[in-house]
C-alpha cells in the first residue's frame, strides 16, 4: 500500500514487517513515535522501559532468547545505553537486533548536538542511515538480515528531519520469524575477560567483513552525473544535494555509514575531478576518505554546527540567493512555555519568590527556566538535578543547604533520578528534592511511565509508589503537596529546606493536557477591582495579559486552575458562574 508516513512510522513498519517481536524504549524527541507506532502492531511486544540502558538490555535479552528485537532512543539516550552497547558488540546476537537512534542536528528539542555515528565507530557496530521515509522503511526491514548474517546489533540512525518528515512509502506484509531456539553458549555470552579476549578478534574480523560487504551492498549508491564535482554524502544531506544540483554533479550516497567502503569510494573519486563531502555535524565521512587516501574538501567549507538545508549547500557553492521579501519590523519571539494551568508553574512561582537555587532536569518543567519565573540554575542531563544538588551541598554545606533544591519530573526521576536519591540517602547530604509528579511523561507527548499505572498500550500496569520508594531508600521526610495551593507549597518548602536531613517534596497534580483532566470555567478579571499592580504577570501564565492597563484573561486558554486568584491582592480574578 502506498502511503505518506513520517520517518518514525516507516521505521516501525519496516521492523514490524521483518518480524520484530520485542521492542523496548524510553521516549525521547525525535525518536518517540518509532515505539508508539510499533505498539500499534499486536504481533510486537512493546514497552516503555524506565531508561535507555534498560531498554537496550531488554532487547538484548529478547535477542538472546532467539527473537528479533529492537530499541529506540534519542542521541543522548544512547549515552545512557552505552554500557550494554559496547559489550553487545562482543557478544553479538541470536535473534536479530536493531538499535534505532535519532540525532537532533539544530537541537530542536535537545540539550546537545552530538553525532551518534561516533558510537558506531567506537563500538564497532554497523550503522545504516536512510534519507527519507521509503528508505527508513526499507533499511529497518533489511537491518535484521545484516544483524543475523554478521552476528551483531545494527544501528539505524535517523535525524530529526527524517524522523518527522513524511514521504511516500510502499509497504508490504509481515513475515513471521520463528524463534531461534536458545542454546547455552558461555564463550559467546559470558563476557568475562577470558571469553571477551577471544571475542575481540571476532569483532575486528567482523568489521573487515562488513567493509567488504559495504563495497557492493545495496545501501550504498552511485549516481553519476556531471564529473567536474563528485559529492559523497548520506541521509538527509543527499536530498539537499539533489535539490541544489539535480544530475549536474555525481553523487556517492552512503546508506551504510559504518563501516564505509574503501575501494568503491576510491573508484568514485577517480571518476570525478574534485570530491566534496557533504555531511551534517562532524566530519566523519571526510575523515574516512582522508584515511584511505582520497583528497576531499569537507568541513573547511561546511560547518559542523546545526542543521543543513538546500540553502546551506547553495551558499557554500556560491549560488545566488533566491529573491525574497524582507521587512523591517522586528517580530517578537515566540518561545515555548508552560501551558496555562500547568501544575509545574505553582511550584516554580514559590521557588522564584523564595529565591531558591534550583538544579533542574530534562522535561517540560525545564521551561521553569524562562522569564518571568526564571526559576532554574542548571540543566545538564536526565537525573543530574538530584545527583547535582548533593554535590552542590557537599561543596557549599551551610552556605547552600536550606537554600537549594533539585527539581525533577516523575518520569525523569524513574529514568535516573532515583539513583541520585540513593546517593543522597547513603552519603547523607542535607538536600531537598522536589519531584514534579504530573503523572505522565509530558514533553515527549504523553507517554506512560512506571509511576502512572498504565503501560504503552494504555492497559493497567504495575504502579511504582513514589512515597514508598523514597521511604524505602531511607528518606524519612516525604511530603506530598498540591502545586495549585501556593500557600501549602510555600509552607512545606520552607519546612523541608529548614530540616537538617534529606527530604523529598512530591508536587502532585496531573498534566492539564491529559484527556481525563477536565478544564474548569475560565476566570474573568473584574476591572473595577484590578489596580494594575501586575503581580499576576510575574506568574507567566499565557492566559493572562494586560489589556488597556488592566489584567485580562484569555478565555480560550484559561483552564480555571485559579492559582492567579491566590496571587491577586485585590481579588480581581473572579470565577464566572455559568448560566
Amino acid at each position, binding site marked *: 500500500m502506498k502511503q505518506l508516513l513520517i520517518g518514525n512510522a516507516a521505521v516501525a513498519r519496516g521492523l514490524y514487517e521483518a518480524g520484530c517481536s520485542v521492542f523496548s524504549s524510553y521516549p525521547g524527541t525525535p525518536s518517540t513515535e518509532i515505539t508508539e507506532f510499533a505498539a500499534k502492531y499486536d504481533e510486537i511486544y512493546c514497552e516503555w522501559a524506565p531508561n535507555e540502558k534498560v531498554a537496550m538490555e531488554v532487547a538484548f535479552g529478547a535477542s538472546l532468547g532467539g527473537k528479533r528485537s529492537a530499541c529506540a532512543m534519542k542521541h543522548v539516550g544512547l549515552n545512557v545505553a552505552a554500557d550494554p552497547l559496547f559489550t553487545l558488540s562482543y557478544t553479538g546476537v541470536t535473534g536479530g537486533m536493531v538499535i534505532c537512534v535519532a540525532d537532533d542536528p539544530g537541537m530542536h528539542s535537545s540539550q546537545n548536538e552530538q553525532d551518534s555515528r561516533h558510537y558506531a565507530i567506537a563500538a564497532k557496530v554497523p550503522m545504516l542511515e536512510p534519507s527519507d521515509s521509503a528508505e527508513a522503511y526499507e533499511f529497518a526491514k533489511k537491518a535484521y538480515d545484516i544483524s543475523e548474517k554478521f552476528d551483531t546489533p545494527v544501528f539505524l540512525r535517523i535525524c530529526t528531519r527524517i524522523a518527522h*518528515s*513524511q514521504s511516500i512509502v510502499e509497504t508490504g506484509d509481515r513475515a513471521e520469524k520463528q524463534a531461534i531456539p536458545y542454546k547455552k553458549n558461555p564463550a559467546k555470552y559470558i563476557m568475562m575477560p577470558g571469553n571477551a579476549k577471544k571475542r575481540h578478534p571476532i569483532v575486528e574480523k567482523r568489521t573487515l567483513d562488513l567493509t567488504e560487504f559495504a563495497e557492493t551492498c545495496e545501501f550504498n549508491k552511485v549516481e553519476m552525473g556531471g564529473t567536474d564535482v563528485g559529492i559523497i554524502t548520506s541521509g538527509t544531506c543527499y536530498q539537499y544535494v539533489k535539490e541544489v544540483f539535480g544530475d549536474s554533479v555525481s553523487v556517492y550516497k552512503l546508506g551504510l555509514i559504518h563501516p564505509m567502503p574503501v575501494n568503491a569510494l576510491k573508484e568514485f573519486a577517480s571518476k570525478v575531478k574534485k570530491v566534496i563531502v557533504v555531511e551534517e555535524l562532524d566530519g566523519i565521512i571526510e575523515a574516512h576518505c582522508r584515511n584511505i587516501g582520497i583528497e576531499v574538501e569537507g568541513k573547511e567549507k561546511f560547518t559542523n554546527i546545526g542543521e543543513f538545508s*538546500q540553502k546551506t549547500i547553495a551558499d557554500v557553492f556560491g549560488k545566488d540567493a533566491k529573491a525574497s*521579501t524582507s521587512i523591517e519590523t522586528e517580530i517578537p519571539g515566540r518561545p515555548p512555555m508552560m501551558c496555562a494551568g500547568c501544575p509545574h508553574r505553582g511550584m516554580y512561582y514559590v521557588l522564584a519568590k523564595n529565591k531558591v537555587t534550583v538544579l533542574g532536569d530534562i522535561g517540560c518543567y525545564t521551561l521553569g527556566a524562562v*522569564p518571568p519565573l526564571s526559576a532554574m540554575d542548571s540543566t545538564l542531563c536526565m537525573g543530574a538535578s538530584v545527583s547535582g544538588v548533593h554535590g552542590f551541598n557537599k561543596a557549599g554545606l551551610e552556605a547552600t543547604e536550606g537554600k537549594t533544591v533539585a527539581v525533577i519530573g516523575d518520569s525523569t526521576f524513574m529514568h535516573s533520578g532515583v539513583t541520585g536519591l540513593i546517593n543522597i540517602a547513603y552519603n547523607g547530604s542535607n538536600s531537598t528534592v522536589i519531584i514534579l509528579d504530573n503523572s505522565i511523561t509530558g514533553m515527549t507527548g504523553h507517554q506512560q511511565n512506571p509511576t502512572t499505572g498504565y503501560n504503552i498500550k494504555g492497559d493497567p500496569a504495575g504502579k511504582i509508589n513514589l512515597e514508598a520508594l523514597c521511604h524505602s531508600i531511607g528518606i524519612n521526610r516525604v511530603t506530598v503537596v498540591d502545586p495549585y495551593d501556593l500557600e501549602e507549597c510555600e509552607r512545606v518548602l520552607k519546612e523541608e529546606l529548614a530540616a537538617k536531613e534529606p527530604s523529598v517534596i512530591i508536587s502532585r497534580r496531573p498534566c492539564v493536557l491529559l484527556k481525563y483532566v477536565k478544564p474548569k470555567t475560565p476566570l474573568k478579571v473584574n476591572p473595577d477591582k484590578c489596580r494594575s499592580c501586575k503581580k499576576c504577570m510575574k506568574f*507567566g501564565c499565557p492566559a493572562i495579559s494586560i489589556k488597556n492597563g488592566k489584567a485580562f484573561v484569555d478565555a480560550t486558554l484559561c483552564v480555571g486552575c485559579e492559582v492567579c486568584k491566590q496571587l491577586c491582592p485585590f481579588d480581581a480574578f473572579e470565577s464566572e458562574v455559568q448560566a
Partner: protein
Amino acid sequence: MAVTSVMIVGVGGQGSLLASKLLGKLLVDEGYDVKVSEVHGMSQRGGSVVTYVRFGDKVYSPVIEEGEADFIVSFEKIEAARWIKCLKKGGKVIVNTQQIDPMPVIIGAAEYPQAVLDEIKGAGVDVDDIDALSLAQQAGSAKAVNIVLMGRLAKGFDIPYENWIKAIENSVAPKFVEMNKKAFELGYNCK
C-alpha cells in the same frame, strides 16, 4: 510538474498538524510525489510552529528555504511576518487575522507589531487576510480554523473542489464532517 511549496505556520496547539495531514493525503491521492516536514517537541508548548508541504513530479528536500514558498498559510497574524523571507517573489500569503500574544508581549518585554501586515502588503506581497476564527465559529467550532484556511488555499490550487471535500471526509471523525465541510466552504467563498 515543478515543485510547489506551501508553508503552514502558526502557534503550537492551533491545529496546523491536521491541515498538513489533510493536504498531504490529498496530494498523494492526486498522484504527486509529496514531502511534508514538521518539527515537534518544544514547539508544542505554545511556541512558533512551521510545517512544510512540497509536491510535484519529484521532491527531494523536505524543507522550504528563503525565497522558495509559493504559499504561506499563517494561522496567526505575526507568524506570517516571521516567515515572510521564505516567500518566493510573486508568492501568496493567506493569513488568519487572529492575534495570539507571545510571552515577550504578555510580560511587556515587547510590543505586538500591529501594522506588520500592512508593511508586508506595502512591500508588494499578495496578502489574503481573512478572519478565519469568526468563520470557523460560524461553521460551528473555533477549532475549524485549519479547515477554513485550507478552503482559502484551495482557491489557488488546480484541484477540483470535490476532491478536497473527499479528503476532508477521509481525514476527520464522521461526526465532524459536516461542520468541517461548512468551514471549508466558508474559507473558499469568503470575500
